[in-house]
């Protein structure tokens, strides 16, 4: 194994220890012990704003009305703070990690599979939550999570959470699917028109499906797979590959593929389903019966931020009740701010998206970074670390 040959195993070991603590993800309050991020200081007070801020975000998080005139929470921010917003849409957590390494950006909306990597590498700085007044209204279940804090120190401001969905063309896929088997065992029915998310983390979707369909594999956590479980997931995906028309990472590409009918079934985000439907595609998106993978996002500040004051203003803005409600409704996710639920245009929104329902979130397997020490707490086996996932993903695509 390549890992064993790295002389500077100490650094790796530290990272592994840190991530081991993330095993208990989901339940708030447990801080990651053992992770020793570089000693960085959070600011104690804010200074004058710098006039601009550079953000890395998921599609739909930083909207200025150019995609949908009704979705605009950037102009009001610019007017209020004088911070000009420059945003870059990232297609995957890996891309976010890469972009943050450039040091060109001030803040990032990192999911759980990116946040700890950013903390461990020192690319993300600790955040002084006292400087973000709206933080006090964030759901307790999102505070001090294993994915966004270390030893009680927050490294960002929670943004929202949601599940990855199965989307299908209601005219071409009949009967309506209820299970992820539609993109695995039964994928051949739509040979050449199945799509999947183009990122190694998608292997977890296959593992989640195997968790309920092949109990003998005893998968507990789709991000903690030993070699046997991992091989089963990979072979399922290799089988799926024969039916895949194209993989998507650019969300606009998926919208266009569903509009034209080049893709008729596959994994998606709510925002993509909304966009495709608004452009006339006959699609429906839902959580299949096996449950789903998902994400819990955190706005983090770069340790090399050139505009930290504007970045803090943005952090406070994006979790303010009104804006958090807007972005949550636009993207189709549960807001992080408890008071956002009163601001949504659909008064049932928070109920539908289970915003305060911690039991529901236990069923969602939030994106996490797989490491050699099994995240589900098993001590007798070694799990397959993320760099092997990356390699396997290349092999799956062939």
């Amino acid at each position: 194994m390549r890992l064993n040959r790295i002389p500077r195993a100490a650094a790796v070991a530290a990272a592994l220890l840190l991530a081991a603590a993330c095993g208990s993800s989901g339940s708030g309050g447990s801080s990651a012990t053992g992770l020793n991020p570089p000693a960085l200081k959070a600011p104690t007070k804010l200074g004058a704003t710098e006039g601009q801020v550079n953000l890395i975000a998921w599609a739909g998080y930083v909207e200025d009305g150019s995609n949908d005139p009704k979705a605009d929470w950037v102009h009001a921010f610019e007017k209020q703070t004088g911070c000009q917003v420059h945003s870059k849409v990232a297609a995957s957590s890996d891309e976010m990690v890469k972009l943050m390494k450039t040091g060109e950006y001030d803040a990032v909306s990192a999911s759980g599979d990116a946040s700890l990597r950013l903390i461990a590498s020192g690319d993300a700085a600790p955040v002084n939550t006292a400087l973000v007044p709206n933080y006090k209204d964030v759901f307790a279940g999102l505070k001090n999570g294993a994915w966004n804090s270390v030893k009680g120190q927050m490294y960002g401001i929670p943004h929202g959470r949601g599940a990855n969905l199965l989307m299908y063309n209601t005219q071409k896929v009949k009967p309506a699917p209820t299970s992820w088997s539609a993109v695995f065992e039964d994928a051949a029915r739509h040979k050449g028109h199945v799509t999947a998310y183009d990122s190694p983390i998608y292997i977890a979707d296959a593992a989640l499906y195997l968790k309920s369909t092949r109990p003998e594999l005893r998968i507990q956590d789709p991000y903690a797979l030993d070699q046997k479980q991992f091989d089963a997931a990979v072979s399922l995906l290799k089988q799926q590959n024969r039916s895949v028309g194209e993989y998507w990472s650019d969300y606009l590409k998926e919208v266009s593929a569903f509009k034209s009918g080049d893709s008729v079934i596959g994994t998606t985000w709510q925002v993509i389903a909304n966009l495709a439907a608004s452009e006339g595609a006959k699609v429906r998106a839902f959580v299949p019966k096996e449950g789903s993978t998902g994400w819990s996002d955190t706005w983090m500040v770069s340790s090399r931020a050139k505009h930290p004051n504007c970045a803090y203003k943005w952090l406070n803005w994006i979790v303010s009740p009104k804006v958090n409600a807007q972005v949550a409704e636009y993207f189709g996710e549960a807001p992080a701010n408890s008071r956002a639920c009163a601001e949504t245009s659909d008064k049932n929104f928070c109920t539908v998206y289970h915003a305060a329902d911690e039991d529901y979130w236990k069923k969602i397997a939030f994106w996490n970074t797989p490491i050699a020490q099994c995240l589900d707490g098993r001590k007798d086996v070694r799990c397959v670390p993320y760099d092997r996932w990356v390699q396997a993903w290349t092999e799956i695509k062939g």
Partner: protein
Amino acid sequence: MATDANAAAGRGSVRRLAGSLHRRPRLRLALLLSAPLLWLAVLYLGSLAVLFASAFWTTNSFTSQVVRVWTTDNFHELFTTPVFREVVVRSVGVALAVTALCAVLAFPVAFYTARVARPRWRPLLVVAILTPLWASYLVKVYAWRLILSQGGLADWLLAPFGLSGPGFGLPATVLTLTYLWLPYMILPIHTALAQLPANLLDASADLGARAGRTFRSVVLPMVLPSVAAGSVFTFSLSLGDYITVQIVGGKTQLIGNLVYSDIELNLPMAAALGTVPVVVIVLYLLAIRRTGALNSL
């Protein structure tokens, strides 16, 4: 060059300077070459050297930070993992297919623009061939995505014959790349055909050769080096492309895609993969050099 400048300038000081340069060929050569050579050596070869060197490093598997420890693991993986071999073969295959298609399509077009069309139309035709190069690469590739998508132009055109378009995939990639790089093949062939002395064709006809025979024995041997020169463009541009295949290639992966996906998480592996096209291109150029085509570039 120097004598041209001499004749054109005509003023005393310039003439003297030109004269002194003319007497010192080594100084002339040094002045002429130092700037571009510096560019070539430092920026061009230098970055290639950095690329090659970083292929021997590794990364921290959790944070993806580059760890500068000497290891040959990346190349070991490159040679032993079947998927890398498949992708390399596929990429070279695509580049060769695009080159062959370009050559076959470019020849008749160039023959028309260089020899058949009326002389006063020829420059306009050349401009027309070049116009696609003025449009954005992405616009052209996305246009092809629309043409090839379900119910798109390709499907519509082929429907009367009971056929459907190729859809997204390897054939779509080859087709789109052929469209993109065709002008680079037409131009050198056009130039070669335009310079073909007419009396050679007449002589061939006088000696009783029919069109086919003239083409094979006179035209083709004289134009082949230009085809090879054009193929250097089409081959290397196709081998390095990773955007077209993302847009119209469906799930197809080429070398560029592997480099792109690794550059985020495993820079040294991306560097190791990046040396593959460099080696392939060098081998291709060495092969082309034997045809003498590089002289007519």
